[in-house]
């Protein structure tokens, strides 16, 4: 009898708590249904779709392949250039179109700049999730410089619609080369400062090391990509392993997670892969700037009207968040029959329930931050 009573008194209940859709660290409108035992997470159910904008339906409804490009910008609004790049490559492959050298170089430089800009945002918000506000703004100062370069060449700061099928919407201004070179020069010391301030801060390491460990096997089974996969120690980068565009012409390393401060595949590894990737992007930009031809008509290969044959293609490119795949089925009309986007954030986020079991509520925030999702891409 007494035993029963004490058992009843000491019975603890699990608490279901709604993280989001309005929550400071879900990076948008992600809703996580978290079942907590004390502060320990027992289950997580991600609920997505709050930002669903029917990209695929829109793409089918457009009467021209090039009209889809502004919409691809909006899939992942943080790395719009990479999204455009992937889509345009897919359409060009379907059209079997050759693109001028200069265009390829400009595209690669822009994609790498965008990668840095996107990683800066990812790193900054990750720090913000863990309570470090200042690195976030330092990152934004640098990101702003990249956006200014983009504004000068495309006229827009965030959603560029700059890369078009067969070329570029307009030629880059003369100031592009020196300004980019200047940025590369000034940005290197900033990475060191960021490392001192955040990456190797012991509190930051305590918060991220050994948290949300994603083993390589699981990562592959879940088809994780980008820094998420590389953080788990798998050296896999589409720019190296399945080169598209002209990435086979550049020398660069693939940074992978090494478990420097904890286990391989923890949050810190994923974070650090991003920091090191920024350095590698700088290396690529430097080489590309050197090799880029100064003259050339960027509109040369742009087709007047896109005439498609029947066929289908799956093209994948390496965006800051991972493997972005465009599966395009074309028919004889001027609009795509089906466009499916394989969004890296969508796939990476589906791992969350598997790696956050047993973590604390604060760790869950760190894990979500280290996946670096963009909800626009998850929901499309």
């Amino acid at each position: 009898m007494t035993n029963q009573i004490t058992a009843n008194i000491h019975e603890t209940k699990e608490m279901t708590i709604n993280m989001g859709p309005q929550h400071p660290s879900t990076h948008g409108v992600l809703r996580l249904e978290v079942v907590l035992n004390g502060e320990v997470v027992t289950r997580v159910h991600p609920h997505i779709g709050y930002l669903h904008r029917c990209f695929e339906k829109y793409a089918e409804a457009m009467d021209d392949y090039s009209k889809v490009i502004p919409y691809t910008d909006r899939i992942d609004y943080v790395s719009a250039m990479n999204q455009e790049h992937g889509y345009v490559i897919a359409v060009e492959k379907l059209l079997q179109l050759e693109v001028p050298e200069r265009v390829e170089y400009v595209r690669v430089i822009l994609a790498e700049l965008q990668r840095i800009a996107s990683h800066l945002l990812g790193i900054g918000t990750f720090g913000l999730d863990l309570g470090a506000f200042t690195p976030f703004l330092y990152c934004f100062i640098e990101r702003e410089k990249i956006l200014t370069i983009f504004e000068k060449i495309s006229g827009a700061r965030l959603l560029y619609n700059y890369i078009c099928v067969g070329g570029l919407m307009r030629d880059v201004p003369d100031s592009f080369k020196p300004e980019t070179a200047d940025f590369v020069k000034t940005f290197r010391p900033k990475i060191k400062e960021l490392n001192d301030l955040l990456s190797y801060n012991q509190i930051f390491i305590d918060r991220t090391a050994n948290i949300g460990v994603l083993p390589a096997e699981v990562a592959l089974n879940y088809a994780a990509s980008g820094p998420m996969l590389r953080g788990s120690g798998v050296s896999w980068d589409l720019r190296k392993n399945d080169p598209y565009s002209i990435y086979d012409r550049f020398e660069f390393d693939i940074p992978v997670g090494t478990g420097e401060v904890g286990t391989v595949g923890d949050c810190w590894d994923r974070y650090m892969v991003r920091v090191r990737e920024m350095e590698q992007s700088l290396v690529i930009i430097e080489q590309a700037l050197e090799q880029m031809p100064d003259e050339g008509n960027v509109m040369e290969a742009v087709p007047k009207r896109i005439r498609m044959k029947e066929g289908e293609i799956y093209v994948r490119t390496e965006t800051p968040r991972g493997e972005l795949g465009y599966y395009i089925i074309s028919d004889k009309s001027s609009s795509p029959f089906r466009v499916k986007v394989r969004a890296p954030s969508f796939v990476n986020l589906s791992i969350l329930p598997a790696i956050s079991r047993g973590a604390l509520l604060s760790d869950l925030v760190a894990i979500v931050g280290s996946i670096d999702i963009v909800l626009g891409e998850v929901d499309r």
Partner: protein
Amino acid sequence: MQKQLKEGYQTFKSIFIGMAITLRHLFQPSVTIQYPDVRVELPPGVRSKLYVNIDDCIGCLLCARACPVNCIDIETVKATSDVDLGKTSTGNPKRLWVTQFDIDMSKCMYCDLCVYPCPTNCIYMVPEYEYSEFDRKNLIFEFSNLSPEKVTEVKDKLEKENEEKNRQKELAQQKKDQEKKDQETDTDTDAGKAGE
């Protein structure tokens, strides 16, 4: 124990390094631009607001067709034969009254796709970004410079001309038919004659 001491030392060391960095930044000049007082000069070709030079518009609808979000609304009326609308600054002859040229900037996605197909370069982006409104309807910019009276006038005129044309066409048709009939009867009679 040694490990813990080392960790503690690391903690304090990294905290002091971080604090040195923030202290340095405390005395660095800020990057803030005091917006309404100071404005950055926008680079050329910036995409902020669509503008139409309506005098150059020939009403070809290419921009409206290029728009992915259908934010451009154009209505044209064919000019009657008695008016000469002149030529655009690029030398293209104008044949249509542009009675309506509305751009809904609340729908616009600033993609610049309407700018490229324009044959007379009359639609373009201007670096004006301070046009927020309390009412969404105020974001529909009307570029047509024709007054409503003028619009009804040209429409009536066209209608009349069309009626006139139709009547003439009908007349011509009737005439043709008549002729045809006549001919047929002629041929009939001829045939009859021939058959005789």
